[in-house]
């Protein structure tokens, strides 16, 4: 234990020495270097790639009916999750679904101090794994629930041609390079 403390001390002293002795270059390049580490604040979402098939984030951004969802993803700063290798299945509520929330709910969630809550709500719409419509039907048939990124399990129900997840009806499906997007008509709340 004592050894550890000493080691830490050594490190501290060393660091102090190094910094105090580092010559300041004209034009202050040291600040430039330090910004290097956060030159990609959105992580992988900053990668420029117009050759690969669009990923989930790119598909969502290009979809006008999902502008509210995209705004929420941006406010929650979880863009990088939607471009990750995943694979992910995202159940994407359309703008009307957000409009249908109780008055003021969305505005409240979009406030910076509620970033965490917003992230949780959106993440509840994403499942690790790649489930296309057939796969979802198979889940329903085999009585398996879908494990969501928040840890919740959502049930898939099939009624004729209609497939629903957590009570939200799927009205469209788009394949993305890193998973699947199912368009749903309501926000899935706990």
């Amino acid at each position, binding site marked *: 234990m004592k050894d550890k403390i000493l*080691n830490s001390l050594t490190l501290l002293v*060393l660091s102090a020495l190094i910094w*105090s002795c580092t*010559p300041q270059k004209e034009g202050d390049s040291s600040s430039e*270097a330090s910004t290097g*580490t956060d*030159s990609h604040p959105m992580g992988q979402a900053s990668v420029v790639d117009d050759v690969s098939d669009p990923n989930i984030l790119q598909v969502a951004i290009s979809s006008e009916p999902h502008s509210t969802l995209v705004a929420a993803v941006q406010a929650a700063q979880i863009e990088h999750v939607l471009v990750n*290798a995943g*694979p992910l299945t995202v159940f994407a509520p359309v703008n009307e679904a957000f409009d249908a929330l109780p008055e003021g709910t969305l505005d409240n969630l979009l406030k910076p101090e509620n970033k965490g809550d917003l992230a949780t709500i959106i993440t509840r719409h994403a499942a690790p*794994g790649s489930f296309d419509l057939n796969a979802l039907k198979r889940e329903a048939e085999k009585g398996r629930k879908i494990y969501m990124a928040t840890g919740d399990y959502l049930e898939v129900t099939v009624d004729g041609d209609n497939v629903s997840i957590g009570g939200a009806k799927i009205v469209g499906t788009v394949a993305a390079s890193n998973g699947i997007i199912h368009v749903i008509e309501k926000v899935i709340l706990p």
Partner: protein
Amino acid sequence: MKTNIIKNILFISALAFLFSCGQAGDRGGNGALSSNIAEKVYVAPGERDEQYAFLSGGYSGNLTVYGLPSGRLFKEIPVFSQFPTSGYGYSEETKPMLNTSFGFIPWDDLHHPDISQTNGELDGRWIFANGNNTPRIARISLTTFETEEIIEVPNSAGNHSSSFITENTEYVVAGTRFSVPVPQKDMPISEYKANFKGALTFIAVDQEHGHMDIKFQLLMPGFNYDLSHPGRGKSHGWFFFSTYNTEEANSLLEVNASQNDKDFIAAINWKKIEEYVNNGGGTKMPAKFAHNVYDESTHTATSTMKNEVLTVNPVDVPGAIYFLPTPKSPHGCDVDPNGEYIIGSGKLSANITVHSFDKMLAAIDAEKFDGDAYGIPILNYDDVLAGSVQSGGLGPLHTEFDGKGNAYTTFFISSEVVKWKLGTWEVVDRKPTYYSVGHLMIPGGNSRKPHGKYLVAMNKITKDRYLPTGPEMEHSAQIYDISGEKMELLYDFPTHGEPHYAAGCDAELLVNNSKKIYRIDENNHPYAIKSPAEARVERDGKEVHIYMSTIRSHFTPDNIEGIKVGDKVYFHITNHEQDFDVPHGFSMIGQRTSEILVMPGQTKTSLWEPERVGVWPFYCTDFCSALHQEMQGYIRVSPANSNIELSYTLDGDDI
């Protein structure tokens, strides 16, 4: 415990001393901190290097890609060697790449990479490299960074004065180091002299696809042809080869090939020989050599055996070939960006010999010869000499240029790089290398337009430069800043294999052409499937073909039954990802080959010959996704006489 405390205190004191002295004492400061050397090679996280460097891997058979100035290793490209990292040379599609007239050869010794040129400037289309041992030339795409073609060079041995290209990539040239009987025959070694031949091979490059074809072989006297470079600018159309062992010794060359005071640089007017050949000149002779081409559209290589080569006897083309006497067994043979100076580095000499192209032409015009060697005219040393660099070093090897009138020569014995001025021959600067430097490389430094900010010296001996790793240390490379009058050593990094030569270019030349994915709709592999729904298993006698799909995070199918001991099972894996940097891998327990790594949109085939009854798993070798560990499957292997039906499923369902 107590000793630890003391140690720590000592350490702190020592460092305090070091750091406090950095600025106060010596304003001129040599330390990295005071002179900001570290910043010159520091590429911040997320930032990119200014230049690419392609270092030969020597006896690894591969080519390594580094960034300058950071010295970061980006990739190892398999060329002449099997490479389990990607499955190159193991997959059914790439095995033909390593085929030769001697059969499948899993290895070679890669020496001299050279980037394609247009008008004498780097154009970034391809990079060529030579296999030294079983003579071959490879062409590597600079969009996919994959080896696309390998051609074997017959009548050659120790393919060393290769693979240098003419200034519009008309030819890639391969010269033999060892002279041999041509054609090969059973004869006494002692009858080498006057009987062995040295083949210099001119391989034409098709400008659209880069495909190579041997245009002609010049059968030269039985010397050792060491290195070569093309003429450029006014000397375009000529090629220069250094020679040693003009004594034609066949044993103890370290003594017997060092008898003559001067050997030769052979000047070859290839345009004249090309014209001769185009007019029907030359003699076709039987020669077996492999030509292997990888087709990006089918993701498959094919190997074709060729049976004939066109040879040219030097005396049949008068006026095309001359010998320039050059002292002391010249090694490097380099031509300056203007094409006027031909530099021969006598490896046993203290000085560097520089010949003048203009003087050479004048002497040829005046027919001032000093005899001949096997009918090839020898020019007078004094008539062609432009100057000699009194270097003060020992053992000059190779020279590159910065495009500002300076040349940089490496010295093996005195372990240094010497900078000198073209024309005045004065030495401007010298810096030590650590240790025993071989080649050096300035990006574009062997073209008309060097991109000369950095110089990379590649050292043969490492010794104490890095933490020790047993008897063998990776060779070292050192980066010098050559933007000023004096060279400045910036950084020292280990390389892989033996970096003989290297080629480099500005990052802009390549970054926008680099391929991200293969389009699945353009995949013409005969065993490709366009979607996972087409996955299937087919039996044809003892051959079983599995058309398998990968997409995050499963194989389709992943349960297969009905395979029998003694079957030949071909896994044709199509990666259905269309996302940059998302390969999937495949490996099967007990399989006598390597894994394969399949790029997005690509199909690769892996062969498995099951020998034991059981249920055997396979899995994805690349951490492809969050559910990578779930990416696996099982194959049931039954006895050879079993009548279990072939079946294949995913999630218990038929596909």
